[in-house]
Every structure is written in structure tokens, then in C-alpha cells.
């Protein structure tokens, strides 16, 4: 997925380049695979991947695989490892890396939790046939700046489980550089009964968001995240503090828009994003006060 910008948020189909180094025009379809392997175990997948991390890849939902302009030596398919499970374990909701986005909208385990925020966050992404392909793991691992899902997950204090590398908060995972040798296995979210709300603004209905905001609340503990800035989602500690201190949604919105960096891309300028982020955070916080998205 190297064709997509991350922190700088520029969503382009090819890397930035100067005219002098620009290669030929039609390169979209340079996706080739030398060998295709169904991994029989995570260990096998990890071993294969780390044999050549530059040229071997773990496949996700493959939605944008062919945009990657990538010559793959070994494509490693984990679809036979039952990573598409959603379950409750030890007080956590666990979501396997191969769970397709559409399942977040339909699985009762999720629609009945966290005010249904996970399903709500993905329901505007392209269409159902797309969301039946795109996976939770692909969306999170790629650190797409425009990821609706990462924005919502961040507000739920989600933890990321990597094979061998262990467990870490999503927040830390998103800010760390991509380590190609890692395999994302599943996500864990504490089943703590919190309410949550999601807000996004899009130029067109199925498009990437111009900016997205998610807020969750458990008692007086608040979590606020803002995504598509257009860089990847970040929490806003000052907005969280404002809410915890009872300063109200408007103060939280203002705090988040002042605290976080915003940038410009095709979809909007930084100043517009900042203005809208303030409104979306406010509205999401307000919704949380009133019982969350499903209230």
C-alpha cells in the first residue's frame, strides 16, 4: 500500500516526484505476484514475511493492492487462519485482523456495544461489496490518514496485537513507523460499557472523510480522537481534559482544533479542516453526553 501517503495525508496514486525523475505515465497496473501462499500458521507467515520484508507482503482485503505499483515476491494469504473472528475474551472484545469492515456493522457483539460506533464509522465507505473485502487489519496496519475506523478505534482505547511483537496501544502503533516484518493479528477493546459517538464530514457520500471525530465516555473519563486531518487519527488530550473538567462540548471542540495539526490536500484546506474538526468534536461530545450514537 506504499502508494498512499500517511502522516502527510496526501492521498495520491503515485509517490510525489519531480518531472525529472517521473517515470512513464501508465504504471497503475504494475502489480505482479511471483508466488502466492496460503499460510498454514502465523509462524509460517511470519517466517516467510521476514525472509524478505521488502518484497514479501501479508495480504489484507486487497482493495487497493493493484494500486500499489508493487512487484511482490511472495503474497502471504492469512485467510485460512480464522482471523475473521469477533469474540469476547477476558473482558475484552477481540476483533481479528481479517474481519471485513461490513461485519462491524452486522455482528451483534459490536452493534450492541460502544453505541455501535464501529459499524457507524465504516458505513459510508464505498459500498457493501467493498466493505466485504476491506479488512480491519488492512485499514489499521496501513495507517491510512483517512481511516474512519482508526479514528473510532482510537476513541475506544483500542489495543493492537502483533504476532511476536506483542500488544500495544493503537495510539502508539499509529505513531510508530511501519515495521514491514510485523503481522497484525487482532484488536482488543476493553468491554467497559462506554458510550461513544462518531462524526465525519465528507464532500461526497462514499468518499474519504474531509475530517472525522470520535468521542467516548465512561463516567467522567473521556477519549477524543480526530482523524483525516488528513494525517492519521490522533487523540486530543486537551479536549479530553476540557470534558473531564466539565467545560462542555464546545470547549472540547475548540481545544481539539487548536491542539492538533491539520493539513491540506485535494479534499480541503487545513483551515477548513480545523474549523470543521471543532464542530465535529463538539457534536460527538454532545451526543456522548446524551447517551451516545444509538441513544
Amino acid at each position: 500500500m506504499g502508494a498512499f501517503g500517511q502522516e502527510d495525508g496526501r492521498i495520491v496514486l503515485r509517490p510525489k516526484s519531480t518531472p525529472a525523475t517521473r517515470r512513464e505515465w501508465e504504471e497503475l497496473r504494475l502489480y505482479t505476484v511471483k508466488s502466492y501462499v496460503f499460510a498454514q500458521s502465523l509462524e509460517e507467515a511470519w517466517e516467510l514475511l521476514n525472509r524478505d520484508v521488502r518484497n514479501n507482503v501479508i495480504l489484507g482485503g486487497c482493495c487497493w493492492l493493484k494500486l500499489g505499483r508493487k512487484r511482490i515476491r511472495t503474497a502471504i494469504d492469512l485467510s485460512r487462519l480464522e482471523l475473521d473472528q469477533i469474540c469476547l475474551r477476558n473482558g475484552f472484545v477481540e476483533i481479528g485482523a481479517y474481519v471485513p469492515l461490513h461485519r462491524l456493522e452486522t455482528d451483534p457483539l459490536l452493534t450492541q456495544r460502544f453505541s455501535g460506533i464501529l459499524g457507524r464509522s465504516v458505513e459510508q465507505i464505498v459500498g457493501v461489496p467493498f466493505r466485504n473485502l476491506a479488512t480491519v487489519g488492512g485499514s489499521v496496519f496501513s495507517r491510512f490518514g483517512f481511516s474512519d475506523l482508526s479514528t473510532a478505534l482510537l476513541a475506544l482505547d483500542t489495543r493492537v496485537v502483533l504476532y511476536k511483537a506483542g500488544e500495544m496501544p493503537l495510539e502508539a502503533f499509529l505513531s510508530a513507523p511501519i515495521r514491514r516484518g510485523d503481522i497484525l493479528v487482532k484488536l482488543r477493546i476493553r468491554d467497559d460499557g462506554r458510550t461513544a459517538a462518531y462524526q465525519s464530514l465528507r464532500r461526497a457520500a462514499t468518499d474519504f472523510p474531509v475530517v472525522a471525530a470520535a468521542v467516548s465516555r465512561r463516567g467522567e473519563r473521556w477519549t477524543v480522537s480526530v482523524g483525516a486531518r488528513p494525517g492519521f487519527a490522533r487523540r486530543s488530550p486537551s479536549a479530553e481534559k476540557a470534558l473531564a473538567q466539565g467545560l462542555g462540548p464546545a470547549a472540547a471542540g475548540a481545544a481539539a482544533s487548536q491542539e492538533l495539526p491539520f493539513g491540506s490536500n485535494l479534499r480541503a484546506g487545513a483551515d477548513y479542516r480545523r474549523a470543521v474538526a471543532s464542530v465535529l468534536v463538539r457534536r460527538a461530545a454532545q451526543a456522548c453526553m446524551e447517551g451516545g450514537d444509538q441513544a
Partner: protein
Amino acid sequence: MRLVNQAIPKLDGLALTAGQGAYTDDLATQNGCLVVKVLRSPHPFARILSIKKDTASKVNGVECILTWEDVPQIRYTLAGQSYPEPSPYDRYILEQVVRYVGDPVAIVAGRDEVCVDKALRMLKVKYQLLDPVLDFERALDNPSVIHPESDYHNNVPIGGDPARNLLASGCDAEGDLEGELARCDLVVDRTYYTKANAQAMMETFRTYTYLDHNGRLNVVTSTQVPFHCRRIIAHALGISPAMVRVVKPRIGGGFGAKQTLVSELFPALVTLRTGKPAKIVYTRQESFQASNSRHQMRVRVRMGATRDGIVRAVEVDALSNAGAYGEHASTTVGLTGHKSIPLYAKANAFRFAYQVVYTNTMAGGAFRGYGATQGCFAVESAANELAEKLGIDPAQLRLLNIPREGEVMPAYYHEPLSSSRLPDCIRRGMELIGWAEKYPRIRVSDHLVRGVGMALTMQGSGISGVDTATATIKLNDDGFYTLMIGATDMGTGCDTILAQMAAEVLHCPLEWVTVDGVDTDHSPFDTGSYASSTTYVTGTAVVNACTDLVGQIAREGARLLGIPVERAEFDGEGVLDTAHPEARISLAQIAQDLVVGTGTRWLTATASHCSPTSPPPLMAGFAEVEVDLETGACRVVDYVGVVDCGTVINKNLARVQAEGGIAQGIGMALLEDVNYDAHGQMVNSSFMQYKIPTRADLPEIRVEFVESYEPTGPFGAKSIGEVVINTPAPAIAQAIHNACGVWVRSLPITGEKILQGLLEQQGDAL
């Protein structure tokens, strides 16, 4: 009427929805073709210094690599227009100079995609970069001259001067404009911008070609203009038109994009050079970035009126961006004024001036509305701004100023308005949208406001004195008919509506009339499906041919019955003697008798038609939008279109034309945003970045027809195809203004622009 004015399902509807492989690539897939791809320029303006192709040529499976040195040095235009085309001859198939990012550099053909892709990667091209002209407002007299070539050719004078990057210019004026403006109580002077929208039909450009046993070049292609295709292919390749046959199978949409040749010449040249079948299928990126689009325009309008709302003077000054080549450039801009100014019929003076310039962006072309859309946005928006300043309801302002039926329209080539129920369209639209209750705005909540807006438009029905259609109707041996047409159904359903007209005249069930795609070897000549010509121009040819055939059948029936022809009457099933109605002969019997034994005479009738006038269909569009005052986000919550297209031939198909056109217009108004980066690279060349409306972006569009009777049209019909795209942009712009006070004069209208405007109202900025 039995069939005309009914809701008849499309003849090919069930086949298409069953997934029958009826499109160009489906046919090519079954025929083992060479795969053709094009290496394209990454630079907006450059001279090719060298192309190293020796290693690429050695790739296993590659059959042929062609560069600028290998193609005919013949200038031509790709515009599908009648000869002599007004579009300049400014292209080679491949040229040493590339003029936009996407211009072809080399053609590669091989056994399969893999080897062709490999060869494309191996081609090494050295370019000398030239200074590109990317801003169309800085193109005129720019030091960079885009078309300095000595063999640049115009068939007809269009006011161009390539040395100044000026492709065309002109002026049409009547009356004392400045004097009238000076006498007006109020004048608005506004400048509007529209973008180079993509037609974005679902089937990208594609063509496959082969040589038949006689060595003739057969071209199966997704085109709206098969006969123009034949002529242009022959000319560009330097071969005789007799050696070219063009076949149009089912088409996955066109909207004007396929009124220009795009993919045809590449496989055609490969087939000529290799003798092998070849096909090219454009990627979506190529379709966006290396074909044609709507012309980007800047339109300045000056409109003056009396205090009581009578518009006395209108000036339209348009600057159009042709892009790198001149297809349809001089003609589209003409509609910008000619289809917008005539709606203000009380004007004592008008002036319409235009300039069309070359730049190093993708060439413009034809897109539904063809310049009228851009003009409609500007002039209707100006009228709305004028109405507001005068304190007059904009719908009332229209009712005061529109031309009445029978009036001559000076700004529309002095053609008379031979049919119009536009006042009824306006009144009905006001009722449907709830104008009385909703104008100008309704507050929905603390941050949501709804506003309504409206606009009028007119288009034409064919190009008067140019577009020519021919129809042939044959009586077959068992008494059924074959209708042969050269008009191209591109999903619009013209095969169906023309069959409806034929069956109506022939008094027979629709099933008795078969009609198929276009084949230049077999179909009668037609300029093609564009300029809203098919129902009106080809329809008239069909009616005339069928009327002729009815006469012939009656004559033959009379002969076989042994009665004078004056007593014979054809009722669809047979010919009867009006003096003795029990004496009759069936159509099947007549048809059989005519193809057996002595006195055989196989009945066919052919009629050609070219209309001296182009009666305008008319429409009133009404939008209701909801604006979020905190984010500027805007969505259309209701849209009403009331159309006078004369007699509606097919109620279903006309309605879907209108709904689809309005949807495209809404996309143009709010979403579709072609942009180039500083290096001349289009940044929206995918459906990921160029957003056409999805169903979640649109309201349920409401369409009604108010039928006038056009005396010169078949069964009283005018056109429907294009007029429907024009009103959304100005109606939505006004609705937004009514909701929140912000005028956005450059398309698309984004939330960012609206919020910017809202903040400016408060003396603030983003």
C-alpha cells in the same frame, strides 16, 4: 396513439440486464486480439528527443511498437462533426511534440497484457521539456505557443490565431448594448467559473479492429458517431474510406465523450501494420486523463433591467479552455451564449463574445449540454442575482421575460419559438417544490437552513441545416419489418423510440419491427447521436420512410385486389377495399406475393431528413438544499424538473433521461472537481478522487413533463437528451444563497467555499 407517448420498455432491456456479452470488449474477448496499449507523456509540454525501443521490441510476444516516426504525417481532428469540420486539424496519431500529460508517445501491441506492460516499461524516452501553459486565463499571447506547426489547418474560418494560442473567437451582437445598459435601473456584472467535468460513462473507451477476407479494416467501437468515425479513420490513416467499415455494438454510455474519436486509431494502425486483430481497452485513469471533457470556462455576464424587472440588455463574454487540441472547441462555446441569452426576450440589445484558447491540459470535447450548460450557470445565476437586487421573485422575473410561443429569438439565430409551454413548466415547478411556502428559506434547526432556487434552460433539437439522418424500413417476406438507422443507441433507448414511431405509422405491434446496432456497411447514413438530434431529426426520417412504405403497401395491395389505389387502405394487418371492406388481403400475403414469381417487388422505403430549424426543448429546474451553517456542508434535499420536450415519445425513457441528466448536473454543481498539479498532472483521474454522485448523494429526483406540440417534429416531439443537465448548477447556487446568504460563483460549490463565505459575512476568514 397506441405506441407513441407510452411507457414502452427498452427493446434490449432484458438482454442487457441478463448480462449478455453485447459490448465491444465482450465481442473482442471472443476473437483473440492483440492487446494494444499506449505509452503516454508524463510531461505537459515537451519535445521527444529520442525513443529507445530495441530492448522493448525483443520482449517475447510483442508484435509491434510504433512511435511518431512510424505514423502518417496527416493532420486531422478527432471531433465527430460533419465534414468540413469546424474543429481545427491539429493532431497527428503520434507526434514529436507532446502537449499534455497523457498525450500518446508510443503504441505497443502484443500477445497479452503481461508482455505489453513489460515492453512499455522498457521504452526509454528522452524529452526536452518546454514551458507549459496550465492556466487558461494566461494562455492568450503566452510566450509558449502550443500549436506553432506549419501544417495546422482550418476547414472554415473560426477566428483563431494559433500563434497567440487563440483557437477561435467571435462575436454576435444586436442593438445598442452600452446605451441600453446605461438606461437600465440596475445592472449586474458578474464572472462565473465552471470546470472541465468528465463525462464518466461506465464503459471506458474501447475499440477492436481486424482485417476481413477482402483486406478491409473493420472497426468495432464504442462510439456515438460511426459514420464520422469511418471518414476520420480513413483520413487519418491515409486510406480510402471504402476500405473502412465501422460497427457500433451496444454502448455503455457516452454523454458526448464518444462523439469524439478516442481509442479507435491505435488498434486500427496496429491491425494495418500487423494484419492481426487488435484491441484497446482504456483504463479508468486513461478515460479521465487522456480523452476529452467538458470545456472549462470563465463567463462574464452583464445583465441590465428596469426597476419592474424587464431585462433590457444581456452581455455574455466567455473564455473557454480548449486544452491541448481543438475538438468541438469553437462550437461548444457558441452555445454558451446562443442557448442562454434568448430566454430574455424583452432585451433590446445583446452581445455575445467569446475566445477559445489552447493550454497544456487535456483537450475538451462534447459533454451533454455542450457549452449551454456553462452558459446556463452564468446567465441564470446572473438573472437570479438581478432578481434579488430588484426585490423580485426570480420565478416572476422569468415569467416577465421569457419568449412567448411564436416569437422570433434574435439571439437564437433569429429562429422562431415554434412551440413552448415554458410558463406552465415554471408554474408547475413552483407548485411541486412548494415555492410559495419555502422561498427563500426555512430554518430547520439552530444550524440547519433550507433554501430553494430555480433556473430555466433551453437546448436545441439537432444542428439546423447540418445534421442529417436517414432511415430505411423494409417489409420482409413474412410481413414483419426491419428498421435500419444510423443513429446510435448508447443506452438512451433511441432504437426503441424510433421503433415505436415506425410501428405507430405502420399500425403494427412493436414486435413486428426489428432494429439493430449500426454498421456503416449496412445502415443508412446518419451524422450520429449528438446535439439532441435523434428523436427530432432521425425520428422525422423514420416517420417519412414509414409513411412512404405505407403508401407502397397500399398500392401493392390495390394491385393484388384489383382495385384502384384510391380505394385501398392499409390498416396494419392488411389492405382492404374501402368500398367493400370485406375484400381484403393480409400483409403476410402481400409480403409473400411480392417475393415470389412474376411481378416481384421487395418493398423498402428510405427517407433522409435535415431540419432547417432546431426547435428548443425548454425546462424549469427547482432545487431545495440544506446548508449546515457551522460546516458549510450542503446537500440537495429535493429537485424538481419540469420539461417541455414537445410530445413525449416514451414516457419512461424520457423521464430517466431527465433524472439522469439532473443527477449529472447536481454532480457538476457540488462534487466534480477536475484539478491539475503544478506539473500539469491531473490529480482527479480516478473514481477515488473524482466523485460522481452516488445514490447516497442525491435526493429522489422528481420530473414532470408539460407537453407542447412542436409542428416540425415527429408526432410533435422535440429533443430531451441534453436540456436536462443544465439547470442544477444555477438553481443549487441560488438555493444555497437563499439558505445562507452566500453566492458561490465557481463550480463545484464545496462546503469549504460556503463556510468561507459565511465567515466573510461576519468579517472573519477561515
